[in-house]
């Protein structure tokens, strides 16, 4: 498909998809959302782009290839286990750091967040890879 309307719409919608995706990723721990949902949303951005242009073009223009998303995602997932192992906790047990940011509230960073980011990236990689390899071989 090569539609001018879609191509222009994509330019703006792309960011909307991505912002929403990251929003969903970060709010996930307390409110509906999370890495899986966020990842699917972000993948939508690519899929949409794939409709506006062609899958090959999108694949070429991707600076980070879907396979790389998988690698980075898995690295993040595996790294998220390391602090727990170092702290001598059970495997997969979360480790949390909290920092008081005064006015902004309490910032809590934990390995589950890293894990979720990993899932986010893996889901993007998997979805994009699925769709593009189906579309590319036209």
């Amino acid at each position, binding site marked *: 498909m090569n539609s001018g309307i879609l191509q222009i719409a994509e330019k703006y919608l792309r960011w909307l998809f991505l912002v929403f995706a990251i929003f969903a990723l970060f709010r996930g721990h307390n409110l509906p959302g999370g890495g899986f949902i966020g990842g699917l949303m972000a993948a939508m951005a690519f899929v949409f782009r794939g409709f506006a242009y062609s899958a090959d073009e999108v694949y070429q223009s991707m600076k980070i290839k879907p396979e790389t998303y998988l690698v980075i995602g898995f690295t993040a997932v595996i790294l998220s286990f390391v602090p727990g192992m170092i702290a001598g906790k059970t495997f997969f047990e979360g480790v949390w750091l909290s920092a008081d940011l005064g006015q902004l509230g309490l910032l809590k960073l934990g390995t589950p967040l890293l894990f979720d980011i990993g899932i986010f990236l893996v889901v993007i990689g*998997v979805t994009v890879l699925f769709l593009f390899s189906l579309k590319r071989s036209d």
Partner: protein
Amino acid sequence: MVVSLLLYLMFSIGIFFLPKILRKYTSVWIAFLQVGVFSFFLTRIPNIINGEVLSAAITWVPALDLNLSFILDGFSLSFALLISGIGAMVFFYAQAYMKKYAGTDRFILFLTLFSGAMLGMVLSENLIQLFIFWELTSVLSFLLITFFHEKEEARKAAFQSLYITAFGGLSLLAGIILLGTIPGSYSLNEWIASAEAIRESSLYLPGLLLILLGVVTKSAQFPFHFWLPGAMQAPTPVSSYLHSATMVKAGFFLLARLHPVLGGTSEWMYIISSVGVITMFMGVYFAVTKTELKSILAYTTINALGVLVLLMGIDTQLSIKAALLFLFVHALYKATLFMVAGLIDKKAGTKEFSSLGGLARTMPLTFVITSLSALSMAGIPPMLGFLGKELIYEAKVQLPGISSVILVIGVAANILLVAVSLTFIYRIFLVKRTTDKPIPKEDRKSWLLLAPAMLAILSLLFGLFPKILGGTLIESALGSVIDGAGDVKLKLWHGFNDVFFLSLFTVVAGFMLTYLMNTKQMLLKNWQAFNERIVRFSLSDKFLSGVDGFVGFADKKTQIIQHGYHRYYIMTIMVLAAVAMWYQFYASGAQLTINNPGTIPYYMAGLVLVSVFAVVMAMFSRSRLAAIVAMGVVGYGIALVFMYYGAIDLAITQILAETLIVVLFVLVMQKMPRFLRLSDKKQRVRDLVIAIGFGTVMTLVTIQSMDISLQPAISDFFIENSWSKAFGKNVVNVILVDFRAMDTLGEIIVLAVAALGVSMLLKKGGKA
């Protein structure tokens, strides 16, 4: 001790990071590592002689009673010294030998890891850990044998050795687990502590047989001996190492290690000694008529392994002492002889007797080294081999009962061995040259010569001054195999006694046989022809064709289940599930009760109706696109149901996934041929029956599951602990990333593998 094992691992990987100039000498680096480890173990000798037992333990998987636990006593020290000492020489030798081949780094990597695995095995105190190292040596030796993987022979031989040793390894594991139930532990010390109980248990015989199966496969005993001659397809440094200090000695190692636990029974004695006797004689018998250097040596290794196993089977203090000494004897001469065979192969370009001869003049040093080692093999003074043979005879003579049979076969085997050794020297170095190949010269500065030279000198040195070995290592090693063993005094000269006359007879008869074999060509030819006829019924080929047959059989069976039709896979799953669930309903006599269905608002009812309508559309639509859209409607409908019941996360995921699935379907659809109805009426009726059967039962199960309340519900736990322990208010997400992180990890792995698979299959230009 543990550090040395880690060093092997680090060095083996480290060779890939060496700067370019040093990479030419990777093998030398490893050789230095071996020297270092060797000296470390040397410095431990005084401790061991004083009766200390060094040990180290690392907690690994405490829940499975699986800890890395290492032990260094006299026996494992002997092996450790052999592995690292001979290893050092082998690596020095490999530096010169492997120079011209591609993939040397890979070779050094495997060989280093192999050394490490072997060392890990002999130091293991936990038997499961021992098994792991045992299997590692099998796998690594497979990789080493198949080094010249472009040769079909090498691949075949490697697979054969892997099949046999891995099969034996599994049997060993079964044996360890079986007998481990008696002391309730896999620790060697605890096995020894409850040795009485193990020997008297009814599991003793099956356990012993399983473990022995591991031993005879690894140590190339009859009837599993045939993988060993095949294994000489490996580069010579590997053969030299495998045959002398490692791999095939592992079986003997295990026998001696478990001797305090399993030994001393009549089963042990009869099974092991009969296997040993057959192997001992058969090995040397086939060696006599072979004419290729490496295969002669391979068959004499089988003979030597037979001797070791036989001595363990005879099971007297004297015989085990002889076995321990013979371990050193054989390691020293066999490593040397293989290295010499490789050297001659390099220099003369052949390993066949017929193209060799008369090399004594041009290769005098090689001649001396070979002669020393071959004499040690023949058991002729003043070499260490002489002492070994004397002790073995002594052990056999003093054996009560079956001594006469074993002694006669033993003497016959030794006569043959003398003949093999002497022929080996004679045909390479002394016989008049009959070929017109260029006469090779020796290169005295090369490691090809220096490495075997050092081992041969050691062999001579120990023969002349046996006390160095006897009072120290062998004595403490004997102490760890048998309780309360006495001093070990080794002497070169024993005086005129029975054993001496037996030795004398052996040597004289061996000389005569050699003379006959090398003067009466006809006799030799006939003998060779006769043996070839026996060998033609080759166990090795039978084994391989058996394996092929089995694979073919499995292939046919698999094709019935794995037919490759997606629709039938789904059908199978549905039919089986439906039948199982229907049966369960029928058998349990469950009453279908709908408790408190609650009020369903009209718009939900409407939603369900729309979904049902969409399903019907999808079924009867004549357009693919319409069917896909209709299925999408069903998916969104389900998402709305989730939403209604408050499962927001689920609903969002469902909507997103549904969208993507529709996109996916549309994409796939473009590639499909025109829409056609291919099924006939009968098939459609069949599908309808299956669909109704499966759908109904799923509905029933769903309704029934409302009545089931698990106590306590797992969801309560999640809800309670989500905020307090995992700091998250969204329980679904907390479950995904924290409580059930393992599941999530598994799921994303599956997803990633599937995506990569699809991407590979549909790569442009690829054939899917």
